[in-house]
């Protein structure tokens, strides 16, 4: 349909959002969201509840009207196109299966709307059922299926129409933990095989990090950062991203250039700032050695050092969690238990050290 206007030529992604905004009265549920998603990419919208991720998804699907901004797929402006003409497959959090239709009837619905021939519909329904391993259940009603099976039907129903974009709204949140792991792998597998351009809304950072090519972290209606899981983890763009993705220590301090004085000791960060800041470092990036002696300088760049005392030590299987009192604060430190070293005991004096490159610094409102 939009063959002439190639999305790449316009410098936009396959799906392009520009300044997408949804206001309810004076409150902006989604505020000036711009991003591009490439063809075949799986991108997560990640954030706490109320961050605007589901509202964004519903605007893309046309279920909520945008207050401002533009939505385009493959160069075609869809901002004011009704839902039924957008050609997007959506999996709802509740699955939203048609309870009065059989599983096969649910899958056939979208194809009937596209006025395909009977034989073609039957062939594609069979294909879709095979895709989600439900070949034998085509005649069942949704109420006769387990939660996991309903989830598969919802996925197959969204995929059978071969949509331009697949939208998944917290699809795994109603499944128990074991099933969630299986479905996570299965969705990623099917998505990769079909090269389906997909947006995956979730509040679960593990889901976002492990399944998706890129993650858009949202907070209070705004996009905080769009990047690969590694980007978010290693190069968080904001204090919110650093704290929302993975565990992290937060140290409030005052910066003078790239030096931060903490008690009597000076710490450095990868960038410089002036005034009140938060220093952040992930617990498992901190090395800890017994005694006050300085550890041998590592080969991987300059390091920060603090001396402290173990306050608490908790065994958690693959990790030993410590809380270490240093410079008047408690810092979390994690050590792998793989080495079978005896754990350090509370009260022991230790030296902490971590790379300056692993030290994030963010301005904080004073």
């Amino acid at each position: 349909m939009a063959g002439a206007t190639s999305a790449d030529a316009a410098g936009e992604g396959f799906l392009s959002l520009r300044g997408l905004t949804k206001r309810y009265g004076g409150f902006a549920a989604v505020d000036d969201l711009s991003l591009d998603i490439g063809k075949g990419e799986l991108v997560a919208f990640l954030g706490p509840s109320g961050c605007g991720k589901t509202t964004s998804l519903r605007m893309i699907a046309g279920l909520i009207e945008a207050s401002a901004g533009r939505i385009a797929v493959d160069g075609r402006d869809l901002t004011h196109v009704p839902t039924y003409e957008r050609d997007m497959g959506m999996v709802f959090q509740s699955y939203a299966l048609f309870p009065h239709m059989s599983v096969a009837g649910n899958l056939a619905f979208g194809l009937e709307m596209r006025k395909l021939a009977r034989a073609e519909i039957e062939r594609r329904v069979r294909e879709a059922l095979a895709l989600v391993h439900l070949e034998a259940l085509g005649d069942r009603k949704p109420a006769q299926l387990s939660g996991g099976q309903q989830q598969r039907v919802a996925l197959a129903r969204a995929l059978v129409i071969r949509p331009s974009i697949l939208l998944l709204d917290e699809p795994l949140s109603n499944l128990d933990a074991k099933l969630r792991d299986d479905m996570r792998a299965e969705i990623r597998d099917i998505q990769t095989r079909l090269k389906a351009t997909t947006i995956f809304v979730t509040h679960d950072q593990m889901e976002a990090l492990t399944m998706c090519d890129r993650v858009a972290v949202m907070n209070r209606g705004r996009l905080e950062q769009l990047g690969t899981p590694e980007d978010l983890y290693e190069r968080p763009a904001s204090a919110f991203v650093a704290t929302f993705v993975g565990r992290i220590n937060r140290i409030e301090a005052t910066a003078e250039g790239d030096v931060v004085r903490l008690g009597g000791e000076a710490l450095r960060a990868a960038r410089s700032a002036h005034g009140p800041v938060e220093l952040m470092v992930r617990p498992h990036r901190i090395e800890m050695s017994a005694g006050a002696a300085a550890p041998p300088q590592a080969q991987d760049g300059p390091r920060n050092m603090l001396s402290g005392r173990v306050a608490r030590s908790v065994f958690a299987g693959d990790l030993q969690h410590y809380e270490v009192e240093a410079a008047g604060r408690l810092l979390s430190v994690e050590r792998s238990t793989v080495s079978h070293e005896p754990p350090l005991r509370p009260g022991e004096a230790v030296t902490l050290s971590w790379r300056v490159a692993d030290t994030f610094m963010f301005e904080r409102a004073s």
Partner: protein
Amino acid sequence: MDERPASPTLTILASLAFVFLLAPVVIVLPLSFSGDAFMAFPPQSWSARWYAAIFSHARLIEAFFVSLGLAATVTALSLMIALPATYALVRLRPPGAEAMFSLFTAPLLLPTIVLGLAILIVFAGLGLLGTWRGLLLAHLVVCTPYALRVLATSLANLPADVEQAAATLGARPATVFRRVTLPLMLPGVAATGALCFLVSFDETVLSLFMTGPRISTLPVEMFHHVESRADPLVAAVSVLLVGFTLLVVVLVDRSLGLGKAFLKGG
């Protein structure tokens, strides 16, 4: 349907309630087979003569068919008005939807005697008294709010995302309504239909104001009959009416399941 067994106390209370509700019906049944000329309990003699008398009572038979036609028309019209109105008020939510809903269902709160008097005054000026059209309009005023009420509950209980799912799959709004919304509302629609039919068929007070020598309904004729005579004819009619009502209820139950129609849909 039964998820758990009822407690003995509940069973006893329910039985008492049933006895209280059904006792008049139980009295009416033997009365209807009375051979006496006057209503008295227990009857002195037994006969089916009052059943036979019904069929030679032309006014009653005529009134029965008026009531039947009236109830069927009122039911059809109530559904035709209330279905789109419900969809507009519950799904499209125009500004002031709640106020409009309260306004449209306000007749439910008014005593029918007050409604009847008000309609009498208005209809007298319009020449609608004692006409079929007048009766129809008056019954609509009572039945449509019931329909609106029950259908609104039925629609509000339907998750909107099922309809939204249909839209994402390419269905236009009219198709979504025809293939998803309406089939899922069917138990509620059936319950509404049965309710409207029975309310209209049974309506006495309002009809008393609207009927006249040219047209009358069955409940009004029965009322007039009891006013002037004390024979057991009315008991025989009552038994037939109970049977007729049961038939309507059983039909709804057989086609959809009453629990589903009245509890889930309504």
